[in-house]
C-alpha cells in the first residue's frame, strides 16, 4: 500500500472567483475546477462530469450543486456524487479557505 501525504498548495484569492462561478487550474491527473457558492463555501472537483466528461466549471452553480453544461446532470459539490436519478461520481479534492486565500490539498506519493 502506498502512503500519501497532503501538501497544502496556495491557489488564488477567494475573490478571484465570482460567487456562483468556478475557475479551473491545470493538474497532472486532469483539470481541477474550483467552485465558489453563494454562501462563500468553496469546493474543488476534477473538471469532468461522470456522464460524458463535460466541463463542470461551465455549469450553473446553485446551492452546493452544479449542473453540467452538456446534458444537465446535477453534481453535488459536497460529495462529488451525481444527484438522483443519475448515478456517478466525480473525484473531490481537499480544499480550504484561510484569510481569503484558497488552498488545495495536493496528494503527494511519499516514500
Amino acid at each position, binding site marked *: 500500500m502506498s502512503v500519501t501525504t497532503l501538501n497544502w498548495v496556495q491557489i488564488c484569492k477567494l475573490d478571484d472567483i465570482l460567487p456562483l462561478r468556478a475557475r*479551473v*487550474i491545470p493538474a*497532472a491527473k486532469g483539470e481541477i475546477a474550483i467552485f465558489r457558492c453563494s454562501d462563500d463555501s468553496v469546493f474543488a472537483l476534477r473538471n469532468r462530469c461522470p456522464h460524458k466528461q463535460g466541463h463542470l466549471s461551465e455549469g450553473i452553480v446553485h446551492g452546493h450543486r452544479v449542473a453540467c453544461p452538456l446534458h444537465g446532470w446535477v453534481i453535488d459539490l459536497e460529495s462529488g456524487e451525481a444527484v438522483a436519478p443519475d448515478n456517478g461520481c466525480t473525484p473531490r479534492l481537499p480544499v480550504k479557505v484561510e484569510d481569503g486565500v484558497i488552498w488545495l490539498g495536493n496528494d503527494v506519493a511519499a516514500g
Partner: protein
Amino acid sequence: MSSSSHFVRERLVVVGNGMAGMRTVDELLKLDPARYDIVVFGAEPHVNYDRIALSSVLAGEKNVDDIVINSREWYAEHNITLHTGDPVVAIDLAAHTVTSKSGVTVGYNRLLIATGSKPIVPPIPGLNLPGVCAFRDLKDVDTMIDAAAHYRRAVVIGGGLLGLEAAWGLKRRGMEVAVVHLMPTLMERQLDESAGKLLQRDLTERGISFFTNGQTEMVTGTDRVTGIKLADGREAPADLVVVAIGIRPETELARKAGLEVNRGIVVGDDLSTSDPDVYAVGECCEHRGAVVGLVAPIWDMAKVCAHHLAGGGTLIYQAQATATRLKITGIDVYSAGQLAAGEDEDEIILRDARRGAYRKLVMRGGQVVGTVLYGNVTDGEWYFDLIRKKTDVGDISDRMILGKAATQGGVAPAFDLNAMADDAQVCGCNGVCKGTIVSTINAKKLTTYDEVKSHTKASASCGSCSTLVREILAATLGVEVAKPEIPKVCKCTGCTHEEVRAAIIERKLKTQDAVREAMGWMTKDGCASCRPALNYYLLCAWPGEYIDDSRSRFVNERVHANIQKDGTYSVLPRMWGGTTNAVELAAIATVASKYGAPEIKVTGGQRLGIYGVKKQDLPAVWAELGEAGLVSGHAYGKALRTVKTCVGREWCRFGTQDSTTLGKELEKMTWGNWTPHKFKMAVSGCPRNCAESSIKDLGVICVDAGFELMVGGNGGIELRGTDKLCTVATEEEVLEYAAAFMQLYREEARYLDRTAPYVERVGIDYIRAKIVDDTENRKALQARFLYAQTFLQDDPWAERATQGVDAHEFAKLASPQEALN
C-alpha cells in the same frame, strides 16, 4: 311561470347566505321552483361565494370574482329577495317571523337556518389588537392580503387544515410565516404522525417555520400586534396574527329563539329542528351528536332538506365517511376514514423516503376502513370508494397498497370509462358520481370541461378532481383528453411561468432574489432550470434596469459561443441576410488558420461557422473578426438567430420583391434581442419559398400585392408549418408587424417555448386580435420592442474582446508553484 304564481305562495325565509343555505335553495328550485316566495338574509355584504376557495384567493391563484357561486342576477332570476350585510337578530317561533339587524321583520311559513360556524377564539389577551384576524370570510382574506402588502412577518395560530392553508397563502404573498400548533404533529385530526411529520418537513423546506407543542399565552403589542408569547417562554415577532384553531357552530340565534341546541342546532334525519317548521343545514347543526365541517356531507344535507321543503317525505340524511385534501400547491395529502388501527385492525404502510411518499391503509377484516396518503394521492378516490362501499378486498389486499394499477396486473392503464362504476364518486367536495357526469354530458350535449363543471358541479370546489372530470368527458365523447396542466417554472416553486411573470410586473420585482423571496421559492439560489428563466423574464420586463446575470445563463450564452462535445467552442459571426464579402471571408480564413480551428462549415442559417476554437482564444478570435466588421451571430442563444433570404427580384426571374434587402433590414432591427427560445426568420421572394419561410418563427413570403406574414413555424423536433398572420402592403409594415409579434412572444411565452407551442397554446386568432386587429396595441408592442433594442444592440464579442467584459471568464488560473496531481 307556472300557474301557481296566481296563488299566494308560501314564504321560505333563509337565515344565512352561505354555501349550505344557497345549495339547499338551489336543490329546492330544481324540485319545485314555484313553491316558495324566498327571502334570504346574509350577514356578509357579498353574494354566495365558495368559502373553500378562500385559500386559493389568499394564495393569489383565484380572484374574488372566480369564487362567486350565485351572482346577483341568479337571485333576481329566481325572484329571491336578498338582504346582504343584514343579519337576522331574532326569530319569533310563535309568530313565525324573523327580524334583521336593520329592523326588517318578515313572516315565514318555513324557516331554514344556515348560519354556519364561527372561528374558535382562544381565551388569550391581545386578540383585539389591529393586525389580528381569523381565516373565515372574505373580510379576513382582505385583511391578510393587505398585511402582506405592507408588513413582513406573520404568525398563524393553528396547524390544522385551515391554518396551514393560511400560512401557505401568506408565504406565497411574500411574508415570513411561522405556525404555532398546540399538538406535536400537524393536522393531527386528518393525518397520522408519519404523514404529519412529512408535511412539516416539506413546509419547512418551503420556508415556513413551526412551533409545535406550542400553547399561545398572549398576543403582544400596543397600537398594533408585535408578536406572540408561548407558555413555555418561546416568542415570535409578528406584524399579522391569524387565529385558525378551529370552528364551532353558530347557534346563538337559534338558542335565543328557544330551539333545541346542543353543540349545534339539533336536527333529525329530515334536517328539521325541534320546531317542525324550522330546518337547519350545514355547519350550524348537529345530527345524531355529530357536527360537520367539510363540504360533502353539507351537500347531502342540502339535498335531503330541499326534498322535505318541497313536500317530499322519504329521504333521510345519513352521515358518510368523509375525505380530506389539503389545498397547498405541490403538496398532496389525502385522508379518509380511520387514521389508525384500533383493536382487531391492521395497518399496511408503504414508505418511499426518496420520493417523500407515504401511504397507509387501515384494514378491518377484509375491508379498508381508513387511508392516509402523502406525496402520490392519485389512488385516494379509489380507496375512499372502497371504504364507503365496505368492499371486500380479500383478493387484492396484498397488492392494494401499491395502488389501483398494481391490482389490475401491470402498469397504470389508460383511463377506462367502463371500468369505473356509475356510483363511483368523482368529486368528493360536491358528491358527484361518474354516472351523473356521464348522463349529464349526454343529456345536455356538453362538450367542454367548463360546461361539465358548471352543470354537474364536479370539480367546481377545490378542483383536485379536474383531471378525472376531463378524462370522463373525453371518454364519453370518444375524443382525446385535453391536457390542462399548466407547467410550473421548476421544482423550486409551485408557481407557473404566468404567475411569476405577472408578479414581476405587478409587484415591481426587479431582481432574482426579490422574485424568489416574494414568490416563496424553496431554494436560495434557484436551480439550473429557473435561474435562466428568471433572468430572461426580468430582462424582458425591465429593459435598461435589470442587469443581466451571466451566472444565470447557460454556458453558451455566458461565453457567447457554442460549447462542443469536446469542450471547444464554435464561433459564428453574423452575415446579414446571408450575404458576405471578401474582407469578411479573409478574416474568417485568417483566424481559422491562426487559431487552429479544424473546420469551417456553411450552417443551416446561411452563414459560416468556425469550429474547434479553444475557450481562452475566444477573445482574440473575436477581436480579429471585429476588425473586419463582423459581430456576434448569436448562434448560441435563446435570441434572434438568422434571417434567411433568397436572392429575390434582383436576380431571380420569379422574384416579386427585394427579399434580400428586406431580410437584412429585419435582421438589423432584431439582432441582439433575447427571446424565450431561439427565434429564426426568413424572407422568400415568391411563393416558391426558397428561404423556407413556412417553417420559421416568423416568415415573410413576398407576393405581387405585398407580403404575407407567417408565424409559429418550426423545422425541428416537431415539424410545424406556419399559420398565416395577415398580408401587408409595404416593407415598413413588415418591420412593424415583425417587431410587434416578436415582442408579444417575448412577453407571453414561457421560457424555452418556441413560437410553435406558444402559437398553438394561445391560438392564431388571439395573435391576430392582438396584432392585426388592434392597431394601437401593435404599435405599443413595436415601441416596447424598439425601446428594449436600445439596450440590447451592443456586440457582446466586441465588449469581451476589447473592453475587458468578463475577463475572468476566459483566463485559467495561474499555475501554482507546486505542480498539482
